[in-house]
């Protein structure tokens, strides 16, 4: 069976920067305080929800940013112990907490600002028991972590947590190697871009414009 190339298509025309996908990720994966694997970026001014330009010639849009699950990841190459690696079967870029030695080279190598987080201390939580999915790997101090496309949900035949919650119906998930998948079809129909194409990483996250 051919390998899958799982990824996302995010419609910037629809995205309203509501942070719901970020929150779903946060809860589902029981992320420690202050850690976000998925974030909303305002494409505009220098603060959240401010446009570029001045009234009345302003413009503003949003992108959401998490691991791009690149075809040619910069991170997996540099990890000295193979703690971050690309799964062959579906292309998910994984992060093995048990292997990680905490050198943070992957964070340094990744061109996509802030998609990886390091637990700089023992993970702290607002709620004193593990929230989210029971099958999420517990977080460890001094290891690097990031979006893994909710592999615990993929294993159950579900989509990543950030997809179905999208209030704007802007997020789509699927297999780019399947020409009939919704994500493949969307790329055929709509103009789109990848983030930082000049970094030659070929992300599997596409943004529709």
């Amino acid at each position, binding site marked *: 069976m051919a390998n899958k190339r799982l990824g996302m298509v995010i419609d910037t025309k629809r995205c309203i920067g509501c942070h719901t996908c970020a929150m779903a990720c946060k809860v589902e994966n029981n992320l420690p305080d202050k850690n976000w694997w998925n974030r909303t970026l305002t494409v505009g001014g220098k603060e959240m929800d401010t446009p570029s330009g001045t009234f009345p010639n302003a413009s503003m849009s949003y992108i959401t940013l998490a691991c791009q699950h690149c075809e040619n990841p910069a991170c997996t190459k540099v990890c000295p112990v193979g703690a971050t690696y690309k799964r062959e079967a579906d292309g998910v870029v994984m992060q093995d907490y048990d292997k990680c030695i905490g*050198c943070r080279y992957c964070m340094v190598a990744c*061109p996509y600002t802030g998609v990886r987080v390091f637990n*700089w201390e023992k993970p702290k939580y607002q709620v004193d028991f593990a929230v989210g999915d029971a099958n999420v790997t517990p977080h460890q101090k001094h290891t690097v972590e990031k979006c893994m496309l909710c592999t615990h949900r993929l294993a159950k035949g579900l989509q990543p947590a950030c997809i179905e919650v999208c209030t704007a119906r802007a997020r789509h998930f699927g297999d780019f190697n399947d020409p009939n998948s919704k994500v493949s079809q969307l790329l055929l129909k709509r103009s789109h871009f990848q983030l930082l194409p000049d970094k030659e990483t070929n992300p599997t996250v596409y943004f529709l414009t």
Partner: protein
Amino acid sequence: MNKIEIKTGSQKLIAATAFLTVIGFSLWVYQIVRGLFVSDMRNLSPWGLYITMFMFFVGLSAGGLIIATVPRVFGLKGFKPVSKIAVYLAICCTVLAGLFIVVDLGRPERMWHLLAYSNLGSPLMWDVLVIPTYLIVSTVYLWATLRAEKGKGSEASLKMLSTVALITAILVHSVTAWIFGLQIGRPFWHTSLLAPMFISSALVSGLALTLFVVLILQKVGYLQRDPESKCRMASLLGLFVLVDLFLLFCELITAAYPLGGTEFQVVKTMLTGIFAPMFWIEVLGGLLAAFLLLNTGTQKDNRLVGGASLLAILGIFFKRYQLLLGGFQFPNLTHFSITTGPVAPDAGTWWRGLQGSFIYFPSIFEWSLTIGVVSMGALLLTLGLKYLPLKPAK
């Protein structure tokens, strides 16, 4: 200056550096327990002073070995009286470079993973291989030199060893440069000139450190004064500084000439932006040092030569620090977003306020731990000088 004074002086030095080393070790333990949170490193600036010091000490380690081996390899007039000290200095610096990597690791107890799960494609793995090699080669070289002094071993085998050591040294600097220079994701680093520049900077800082240590040792009477070889070392250092500055210039003009694009922005930041103070200390200090070192009038003055050496070392330190910061200071995606992970505390705010805002400034804890590690190097050096037969053979 009599021998008693030296003895008590060295004992005091050993006690002081040992004390600081113990403190440094305790701080490291504290850092492991409390978490790297005690540093000012954060998710958008995941490396900091420790990695800077790693780069810096890899560079410092170069000088000694190059001074000791280059003349032998190419059959030039060498600096025989100081070559053993230079090699030992290199060993100490290499140990420190390795230690700074360990100090920076989040899970040092998993270091065995490096051997068990090696990813040979990682530049860090290359360094993991090449630094111990370098350490071993240096040690063997020192051992062989000592043996040669006692008339054992052949000059040919020593020359052979010199060649191996030299190649290893060049590899160490290149590999360390490639840890940074191969990263397409960090425009500030991504240049093919980085490895040559690392070598030239290593020559500068390594030779400057050796020269400085030699001057001190001469002053305290450990070594005999040798104005002729000092002047030659000074001239050589001056030359290295100029070469290093030339490479820097090549890099800058290539990046700046288009007058646009990311790389031009990088140059602008260095020349007039938040890195300007460090950059100009590095450049002007370098030029001043080169003048003092090359000018036959000033190169005779030990204090001026010592000062120039320190200036050269400082310049290289700034270069390293600036390189590291530069990798993080300009994120590729600059759109506003919430910060992920904890925010750096306000320590260092005064510094950030001084010059724009740096994405990272080492916390007091990091400085303290760094002093502890460096003290260990000083301790190693002092112990070596005291207990190893590093004095020139009479």
